[in-house]
């Protein structure tokens, strides 16, 4: 268990370093939902190669590291209705809120952004309520 926390901290430092590079070198906020969403709805097509290069990095590095782990179980649900409902909620919600865990949380909170702090408190609270509701009350996950 404690090993997981240490790897969490190491992974967190890598994530934050990625955000620091993206801010200081490229002048952009490392927000996953914004980077993807701008490509999907067309509002970010002016920087499409920069966005695609970022996403390529997100996909490629785990492919390079994966062989050293052999097998990773992500424990993802096999209930398609759950996955589709969750995906739609995350897709719409992050675009309406203008950010997700990376943009509002990782980038916004250290900026002492009121919006980032408020959004993070709300989505963590909603996530907690969601797990209680879907797992303990409805039993769908």
């Amino acid at each position, binding site marked *: 268990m404690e090993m997981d926390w240490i790897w969490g901290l190491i992974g*967190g430092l890598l994530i934050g370093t990625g955000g620091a590079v993206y801010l200081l070198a490229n002048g952009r906020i490392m927000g996953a939902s914004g980077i993807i969403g701008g490509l999907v709805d067309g509002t970010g097509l002016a920087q499409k190669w920069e966005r695609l290069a970022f996403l390529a990095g997100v*996909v490629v590095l785990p492919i390079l590291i994966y062989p050293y782990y052999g097998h990773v179980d992500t424990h993802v649900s096999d209930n398609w209705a759950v996955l589709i409902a969750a995906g739609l909620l995350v897709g719409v919600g992050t675009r309406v809120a203008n950010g997700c865990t990376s943009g509002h949380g990782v980038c916004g909170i250290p900026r002492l952004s009121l919006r980032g702090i408020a959004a993070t408190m709300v989505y963590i609270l909603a996530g907690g309520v969601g797990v209680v509701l879907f797992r303990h009350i409805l039993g769908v996950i």
Partner: protein
Amino acid sequence: MRNLFAFIAGGLFGAGLFVSGMTDTSKVQGWLDVFGAWDPTLAFVMGGAMIPMFIAWRLRERRSAPVLGGTFPPTPPQKLDRGLIGGSVMFGMGWGLAGLCPGPSVASLSYGGTGHWVFFAAMIAGMAITPNLRRLLNKAPATA
């Protein structure tokens, strides 16, 4: 050069999500599940990520422009609105339901299996329909 640094930043992000275990949906749901077997890993990840970001924002203040040119992101309005709160409620519910948020959903596409692609496709669809949903909601009061 911009694309190279974007790739490096994305690579650090993807590697960090992988080694931290944040693409494991049971760890995310375990963190949110305060009434179950609570898993504090996510707090270590968030805390760790905020250290370099905090330094980066201080360094940003000393610079007039990013290293590769262009401009820094403008300071967003420090105003809380219905979109921010309502959107975050929706996002949090979906996050709890599947244990995935946008970053890890991309990082896990290569090894997570079909379920991750189903979630990813639904998330893209949600992002695609959001402009239409906004238009619909903005129109609603006028027709009521």
